[in-house]
């Protein structure tokens, strides 16, 4: 058995194609990004080596740290919202009438492109005739805020569509995981007198833990790298109030033509993502892998 399952040739055959692909498409640019980060380059002429200057500037760059803070906020909100998604998935996976249809409907926003979602939410947040403000005005609110123009509100206003965009993704993952729990366990617990909440907490949750841990990492890192709706809806404004690291990096590269510095930011973002992943794995580590038998 062992010999069959450790056949080196087979392993190589199965793993190498994908590994090679990743190495070329992801790791090589990664190294190049690190290299560019050590240069001053406007993307047009030749790069000029300046050592760690970009990183020194990064440390002093208030705009960057603001954007980093915003990214972190998003990561926190994103991770917290996982609880909600898990709960929804549990409901959908249970024997509720029409769960099937609900599941399909809930996942629909996930299919829309960022452009569509951005357009939709711009219409929701429009200061005068947007859906939200029109609704608030009919409720009697006198001067509803301009959600995307108010520096103190804009970031949180953007979090809503961002989280909404990915809700379907996480619900789907949790749903698939929950569906893999053998119904025998649930039946047995019910016969023992457990109610729905106890079943959820004591049985379903532990069995989906592996998946939950994975989604925590995904949510956190995905938030740190997030770009789309921020850039499309506000461009990071007003004046950086909704800037995140990825949009800051993008503007540095493609608008300010400061590609060396942008690469430094990108590389830093990468290291940050690795660090966060490591921390999360540490915090959620457990040795037992659950067996069914």
């Amino acid at each position, binding site marked *: 058995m062992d010999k069959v399952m450790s056949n080196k040739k087979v392993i190589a055959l199965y793993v190498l194609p994908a590994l090679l692909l990743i190495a070329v498409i992801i790791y090589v640019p990664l190294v190049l990004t690190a290299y560019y980060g050590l240069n001053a380059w406007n993307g047009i002429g030749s790069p000029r080596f300046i050592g760690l200057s970009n990183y020194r500037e990064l440390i002093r760059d208030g705009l960057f740290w603001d954007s980093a803070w915003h990214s972190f906020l998003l990561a926190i909100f994103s991770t917290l919202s996982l609880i909600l998604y898990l709960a929804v998935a549990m409901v959908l996976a249970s024997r509720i009438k029409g769960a099937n249809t609900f599941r399909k409907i809930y996942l629909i926003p996930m299919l829309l492109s960022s452009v569509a979602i951005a357009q939709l939410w711009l219409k929701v947040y429009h200061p005068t005739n947007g859906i939200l403000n029109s609704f608030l005005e009919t409720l009697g609110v006198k001067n509803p805020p301009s*959600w995307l*123009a108010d520096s103190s509100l804009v970031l949180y206003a953007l979090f809503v569509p961002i989280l909404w965009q990915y809700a379907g993704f996480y619900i789907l993952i949790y749903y698939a995981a929950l569906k893999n729990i053998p119904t025998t366990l649930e039946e047995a617990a019910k016969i023992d007198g457990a109610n729905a909440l106890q079943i959820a907490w004591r049985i379903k949750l532990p069995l989906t833990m592996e998946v939950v841990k994975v989604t925590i990492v995904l949510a956190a890192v995905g938030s740190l790298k997030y770009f789309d709706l921020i850039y499309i809806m506000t461009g990071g404004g007003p004046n*950086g109030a909704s800037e995140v690291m990825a949009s800051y990096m993008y503007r540095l*590269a493609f608008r300010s033509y400061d590609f060396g510095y942008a690469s430094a930011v990108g590389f830093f973002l990468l290291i940050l993502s690795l660090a966060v992943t490591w921390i999360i794995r540490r915090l959620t580590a457990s040795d037992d892998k659950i067996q069914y038998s």
Partner: protein
Amino acid sequence: MPVMKKISMLLTISILLALTACGQAKNEGGDKGTGGGEGGDTKKVTITFMHLWPEGVSAGQNRIVNQIIQEYQNDNPNVTIKQDVLDNEQYKNKLKVLSSSNQLPDVGVTWAAGFLVPYVEGNLFTPLDDLLSEGLGDSFVAGTTDAYAIDGKTYALPLEFNIAPIYYNRAIFEQYNLDVPETYEEFKQVVSTLASNGVAPIALGNRDRWTGSLWYMYLADRIAGQEALASAIKGEGSFADEALLRAATEVQNLVDMNAFVRGFNGLSNEEAKSEFLNGNAAMYLMGSWDLPNFTTNEDIPQEFRDSVGFFKFPTVEGGRGNINSWVGGPGVGLFVSEKSPVKEEAKKFVRYFVERWGEQSVTGAGVIPATKVDTASLDLPKLYEDLFNEMNNATSITLFADVQMEAQAAETHLNQIQALFGKSVTPQQFAETHDKVLQR
């Protein structure tokens, strides 16, 4: 083992596919503009032309471009022109990526001044002064080619020319018994009357930031004068100059007066423009490129179009600017890549294009070209004629600040504009941040 065979077959096929695909792509790359191979008298030449007028939304320009290309190809049968069409934003990105690996198209579109600098420094655009000889140079409106010149050499030929008036809705003005303001005091009166009557005085979409910059520039021009502004932008003068500080303060005064539509700092220019088009806002400071919307665009109700007029930005009492000083300048221009293998042919094409474009752009796309237009021979809507008159009487035209400045400074300027309008910086801070980045 059958499965092994399947896998190895798949792999071989994919590798073969990849190789042939690569080979094909390389061949196509080889054809591009080497102008070699075919026998005969004239060499076959392919010119790659990248522009930002997609058929979907710049129908007029797109039509003109295709027509010109057709004509050129007919007149020069050995030449094929290959188009690459992108929209504005993506065009800028693509250009950047292409330039970083020396893959610029033979002919492309560029913006003036600050945008041009890195490309010129990187030796990516070829000088086009020889095209300006034989009369072409004179056919340009004075000063338009200067914005595309660095160190005495011209690196692109402009295709557009714009100035920015304040458009206003005559119906609304009549409704509140308002006259066209000629001084800034009168202007503020208009603003407060409208605001107190619940009508948004000015449509402004400052999410795009350059729109707010127009307001600042005019205030700066009228208060501090064109030279002070120009020298501050160049980094020679200072934005903390008393008159320029006053201009920044005036911006914030206008904000306090509720002169701009609600939530302007988060609205896009499109959204703001629609407030004006829907009659929700009375005034709109914008470039002459928007004229088609107020004249020929059938999608906009005729009633509205008939009630649009424009006036010049009012003068400020005690200020050094005069009413015939405008913000505006050349729009996009055509460049020829320095590394182009078909440089001479490309240059010939550019010259041809600029001439033909100038003949048709107004009537065909509502775009004012940078070459002089004989308005008498054309049947133009009144707004166009009035605007052309103003252009001829202009005493000075200052190019948009974010176009004048280099990329990094331009970004800082635009962000500061948003901050100024959003009142998250003081005029003093506004000035200091500018000086810091411009005087580097």
